[in-house]
């Protein structure tokens, strides 16, 4: 009797186990592969691996730059030193700082990027507002023309602009960047108008009507009501405009000539300036990769700092601005 119960129990037990494993498998399957969408473990892991590796590729040049810039000449020539230098060699930075004439160059770089950026942020907002909220004859045509200007390469209009600015004595000053920016032109002005246009269109008309009923004129409505709630798009436009002006070397070298220089421009002449400053006949004082990398890092540093502060705002903002249209 006892034996038979045991025998009987066994298949029952194994059935239980089988059931359990089946359920367990199903659970782990849904855990691994996910029941819907990408909430399973395996897709998650794949996504993270991809993100981390792509992120590494993005950071690689920066890391390389930082690592290289701290290497002394010995570390640089030593193949056993791959990433982490034996000692932090700040001397590279000191030299690069002097070669770039950092504070002066930074000043003129800021002058040539912040001022045009402010001008563009304001002027493009006004124009974008006009296009977004007012009806007038020929609007579609003008808007089309505005979009078309985006595809005109600056190389086509650069020569006449150069002659124009020369005629008005604006060369060798930041004015060739500021003046067109005041009129909603300049670097990628059409794109900024478009960003504002898209944003302003999402603001309900009722808001302006309410302001008008309360006796606010167009300008007052625009500056007191519309602009304060448009901060996201303002931040995006300002940041883009400033960054693009900062990085502009092609027009900058043409317009500024030898009178002014910006940080990215200085990188071009880095070797020559270095030799002029540290004229060394010995190989030891010659310019090397580490010093160049230190210089490069110094050049992108202001943008990195700006990005560090604006980054959170910037990435959040993209959700709200609807950067592009349908």
């Amino acid at each position, binding site marked *: 009797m006892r034996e038979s119960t045991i025998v009987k129990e066994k298949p029952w037990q194994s059935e239980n186990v089988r059931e359990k494993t089946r359920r367990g498998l199903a659970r782990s399957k849904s855990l691994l592969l996910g029941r819907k*969408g990408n909430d399973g473990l395996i897709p998650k892991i794949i996504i993270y691996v991809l993100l981390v590796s792509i992120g590494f590729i993005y950071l690689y040049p920066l890391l390389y730059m930082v690592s290289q810039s701290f290497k002394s000449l010995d570390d640089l020539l030593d193949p056993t030193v791959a990433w982490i230098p034996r000692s932090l060699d700040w001397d590279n930075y000191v030299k690069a700082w002097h070669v770039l004439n950092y504070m002066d160059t930074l000043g003129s770089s800021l002058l040539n990027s912040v001022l045009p950026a402010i001008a563009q942020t304001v002027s493009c907002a006004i124009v974008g507002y006009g296009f977004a909220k007012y009806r007038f*004859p020929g609007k579609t045509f003008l808007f089309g023309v505005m979009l078309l200007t985006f595809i005109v390469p600056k190389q086509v*209009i650069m020569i006449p602009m150069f002659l124009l600015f020369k005629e008005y004595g604006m060369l060798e000053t930041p004015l060739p960047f500021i003046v067109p920016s005041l009129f909603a032109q300049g670097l990628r002005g059409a794109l900024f108008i478009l960003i504002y246009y898209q944003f302003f269109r999402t603001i309900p008309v009722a808001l302006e009507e309410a302001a008008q009923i309360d006796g606010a004129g167009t300008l007052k409505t625009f500056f007191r009501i519309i602009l304060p709630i448009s901060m996201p798009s303002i931040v995006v436009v300002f940041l*883009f405009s400033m960054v693009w002006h900062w*990085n502009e070397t092609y027009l900058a070298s043409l317009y500024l000539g030898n009178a002014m220089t910006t940080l*990215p421009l200085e990188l071009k002449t880095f070797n020559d300036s270095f030799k002029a400053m540290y004229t060394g006949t010995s190989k030891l004082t010659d310019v090397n990769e580490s010093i160049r990398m230190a210089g*490069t890092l110094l050049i*992108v540093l202001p943008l*990195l700092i700006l990005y560090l502060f604006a980054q959170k705002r910037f990435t959040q903002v993209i959700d709200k601005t609807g950067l592009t249209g*349908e």
Partner: protein
Amino acid sequence: MKLTKRRREALVGYLLILPWIIGFVLFMAYPLYFSFYMSFNKVLITPYGIETHYLGWSNYKDAFLTDPEFSQKLFLFLKSNVLMIPIVIVFSLFVALLINQPIRGRGIFRAIFFLPVIITSGEVVQELFSQGAATIPLIEKYGIVTMLQDNLSPAWADPIVGVINQFILILWYSGVQILIFLAGLQKVNTQVYEAASIDGASPWVIFWKITLPEVKPFILVNLIYTTIDLFTNGFSDVIKLIQDNMFKTDTGFGYASALAWIYFAVIFVMLLIIVLFFRNKERGVPAARR
């Protein structure tokens, strides 16, 4: 004088866009006209002003017939861009899809992926490039490059190898595109996804049937943006050539303008092809849209 509401609105509208109209005339229309005019002339800068001699089409003819570099460089540049543009688009869509997932540390990843938007300075990138910071050591190690060179004709192997060598560069040109795709992805109604997954659609099917059609307009925007970005940045050999010709005494502004206009025409045709191609595709699959 009494203004109707409609008239008043139009007047205010014109006033608001007036800065742009002035700017357009001064800094776009006039320079365009002037450079077009110069392209048909021999332009000399003399102490007394600008002197022009009418040449007819000869600047344009010279560009293709006598200039040893121009047409060759233009062709090479076009070839590498035709390869690069699709890669940039596919890659940026891929990254946008990744960071649109509900993942932890999304903020950090976003911050990293938007980094190129900040540091895309021609000079800095070029510097990194020349110091070897912009190539992936892994690719060289596994001999992919030599494999390609062995198996393909040089006409195709060279541009592909060029693309591989500039891979990081390509990624670094995708910053704004990722942004645009992300903005597009976030406009897709999440309920559509939920409905689809309840109906048993796999993520793969959801991507092709819902996500892709929804971001299609953004693909076009990105194609246009990428084309313009690649064509107008300082990396282009053609642009360097144009700049060199500006200050050469035997060629000068006239010839440089002609080159710039040819270049512009090429960009325009390229964009036209993209838009037309896109339109045709759209018409081909009417069920996919709306």
